């Protein structure tokens, strides 16, 4: 993927255009598809170039004939119209030649497709789940997983009228809090599904996108050749923040990958610790604010005002200020037919307790009560 170069200048466009242009600090006129870093991506790229050149050649041929007519067969140049109106021979030729060209294209295309569908003998499996509007990655073999959301500085700058210049945010809209880390040289099988609506997982450098669909498990694979950071985005319209659920793949050497897995496993144990103890209100509020910032803020907004009527306010809401049981039910089970997801399946007991406590005591809400992890455990039964 390309990146924004800083300091690059744009020379000599019309003065007015240059003025309008002033927001754009660097120039990046990418023209073509990336060749990518996998066997598949290179094969698809070559196929793309092959068809592109065939199309260009046909276009040049056909339009040359046409422009010859336009310049030579003008009435103003005294051209007298011929009156022929068909030629079986010509019509046969321009039916048969395209068929031959198309059959020629079909061979490499078929070969590439067969390769794409061979997801067998993988070295490891990653399960990707699309959520509105974040990705969840589960390392099936290692037995852990995490959510990956848009980086905080991008998220701040992208708000309507934020006053922040996207040019000054590093990797604007293409950065996440936790990237998907993968080892190079290993065949990774991806399983894709979704929790709410359809999303599509796309990293151009890997060569493909695949839809992640509720109730379905799609398969695909990649073997990344070069260490590096590869960026992509959700490619299927999935609601208001469709443009804000990027994907970052960090490909690292194998030993580095295993070291990272060890660390991640330890962190996972730490995160779920404390589910059995009593939490203080301050602890819950601090933790809750953090969880809210990751999972709730996109719809309910930082100030809890929401974007009514589609995304209701939490400040002063009858749910967040009402009985705990109903509030927990909404948080854990969601509201069908809306973008409100069932977070019971996504978050652990501590996170749910913290975020519910936070919602009851922030934005001017003052229920005063705290929800302990134990209450979540009980509600799950």
């Amino acid at each position, binding site marked *: 993927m*390309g990146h*924004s170069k800083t300091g690059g200048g744009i020379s000599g466009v019309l003065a007015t255009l240059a003025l309008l*242009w002033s*927001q754009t600090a660097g120039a990046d*006129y990418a*023209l*073509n598809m*990336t060749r990518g870093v996998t066997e*598949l991506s290179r094969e698809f790229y070559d196929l*793309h170039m092959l*068809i592109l050149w065939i199309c260009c050649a046909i276009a040049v041929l*056909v339009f040359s*004939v*046409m422009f010859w007519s336009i310049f030579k067969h*003008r*009435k103003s140049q005294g*051209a007298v*119209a*011929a009156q*022929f*109106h*068909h030629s079986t021979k010509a*019509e046969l030729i*321009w*039916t048969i030649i*395209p*068929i031959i060209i*198309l059959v020629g*294209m*079909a061979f490499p*295309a078929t070969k590439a497709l067969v390769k794409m569908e061979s997801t067998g003998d993988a070295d490891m499996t990653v399960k990707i789940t699309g959520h509105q509007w974040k990705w969840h990655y589960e390392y099936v073999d290692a037995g852990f997983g995490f959510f990956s959301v848009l980086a905080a500085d991008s998220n701040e700058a*992208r*708000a*309507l009228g934020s006053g*922040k210049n*996207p040019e000054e945010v590093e990797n*604007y*809209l*293409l950065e996440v809090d936790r990237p998907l880390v993968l080892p190079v040289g290993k065949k990774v099988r991806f399983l*894709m599904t979704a929790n*709410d609506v359809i999303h*599509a997982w*796309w990293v151009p450098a890997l060569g*493909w*996108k695949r*839809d992640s*669909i509720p*109730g*379905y498990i799609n398969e695909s694979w990649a073997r990344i050749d070069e260490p590096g950071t590869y960026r992509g985005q*959700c*490619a*299927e*319209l999935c609601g208001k923040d*469709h*443009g*804000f659920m990027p994907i970052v793949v960090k490909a690292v050497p194998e030993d580095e990958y295993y070291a990272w897995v060890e660390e991640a496993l330890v962190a996972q144990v730490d995160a779920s610790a404390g589910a059995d103890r009593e939490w203080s209100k301050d602890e819950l509020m601090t933790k809750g604010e953090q969880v809210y910032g990751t999972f709730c803020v996109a719809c309910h907004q930082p100030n809890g005002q929401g*974007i009514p009527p*589609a995304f209701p306010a939490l400040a002063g809401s009858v749910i967040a200020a009402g009985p705990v049981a109903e509030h927990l039910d909404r948080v854990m089970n969601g509201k069908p*037919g809306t*973008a409100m997801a069932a977070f019971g399946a996504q978050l652990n007991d501590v996170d749910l307790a913290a975020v519910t406590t936070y919602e009851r005591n922030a934005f001017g809400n003052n229920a005063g009560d705290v929800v302990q992890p134990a209450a979540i455990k009980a509600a799950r039964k």
Partner: protein
Amino acid sequence: MSEAVMHGHEHHDHHPTGWKRWLFTTNHKDIGTLYMLFSLVMFFVGGAMAMVIRAELLHPGLQYVDTQFFNSMTTLHALVMIFGVVMPGTVGFANWLIPMMIGAPDMALPRMNNWSFWILPFAFTLLLVTLFVPGGGPAGGWTMYPPLMLQTGDAMPFVIFAVHFLGASSIMGSINIIATIFNMRAPGMSFMRLPLFVWTWLITSFLLIATIPVLAGAVTMLLTDKYFGTSFFNAAGGGDPVLFQHVFWFFGHPEVYILILPAFGIVSQILPTFSRKPLFGYESMVYATASIAFLSFFVWAHHMFTVGMPLAGELFFMYATMSIAVPTGVKVFNWVSTMWRGSLTFETPMLFAISFVVLFSIGGFSGLMLGITPADFQYHDTYFVVAHFHYVLVTGAIFAMMAGVYYWLPKWTGHMYDETLGQWHFWLSTISVNVLFFPQHFLGLAGMPRRIPDYAVQFAEWNFISSIGGFVFGLSQLLFLYIIVKCIRGGEKATDRVWEGAHGLEWTLSSPPPYHTFVTPPQVTDATAHS
């Protein structure tokens, strides 16, 4: 002017005046005018939405609208342009021209004709008021994929009933066109003498009748899923979200040809006139149109290669899609051969028709590329697709309609349009439309997904250029409006034949034609048939 026309003029010239004339009219010319004016109004409504989209995309960051509103703009822009501009516009041409081209006094079912038009304003009122209902307009894309579409607020039933109304209108229009062509041709007007525009509309009508009920079924299932507890598309209830996509695109792909076949017909009338030479390969044009229509029923899944179909399915839909390139190629080659060794002049209709052939072909090439499944895994749902279908629909369908307006406007109004302004409109439109859409190919290839309100900064330059092209293209259409209004109000008197090289029955009538024409059918011979 033929004697038959004079005869008709004398006896049938009493009809209501004022607004009642338009509300109660059963006259194909009046209804044709209503359709065309409706299409023109909607062109500016849908165009205004496009301007909002391009303004928001001028620079990275969100400047003017929130993301939900942006999504409802892309959704409504598509619905308005497809169902409000291209379809009614081409039906307008059909109403005006089919009776005059086949020597019939009117459409076969005039009252139904009136009804099928007057449904449209109601349908679009339903669709556009959604912008003001709680929850905002529909924002799930014009493709309405569940489960996302099921998250729509109160707008949902409005959209679905609007689609039902539009479908009913289209089906009635199609039945009318088929009945007219089958039953009301003048003596001697055999099928293989029909002007190509009539042929393309005959085939389009069958496509509409076959596919609109499928769309109606799909959206009705959405409605019951949302409000009546069914689970057609809800995985948690045992349904299948991908089923909707199959059903939708079984309608949606033929729909693409519903939009473009009449445009093929218009261009096939215009190129021979200004080449002063008969259309090359009339028979193969008819067969190519019919094969495109037939094949369009077997390629729907190429819109959804990334949903994870079995390999056999992906291969089948890839091969079927590639095969459409053959009859489409035949059409382009025939158009070029029509111009070859002609005696060409370049009035505005011809300029738009030539521009159509070149730019539609570019859309055709990118379509072929998109049909190659493995490459589509990269192209799918990016700006490359946006560029592709705008080349096909704007420089394809819309340009052909503009060509047709300039070509027949003198016949319809009795006045010549302002040729200088027409040429200005052409050059402004053709240049700006390419500045608008060509860079979108690059954006898509470089990795920009479609339907996003904000983008990473590496896409800023081409988006800026594209938006500037968009604004110029949008403003240029005000010139188009001015030219049309000016032509309706007056101008140099048009002759009956209007264009030196024009052939066909409509050019034997006066300009403008009398209210009732061909009350006594003309006798058609090889010499008076299509050019």
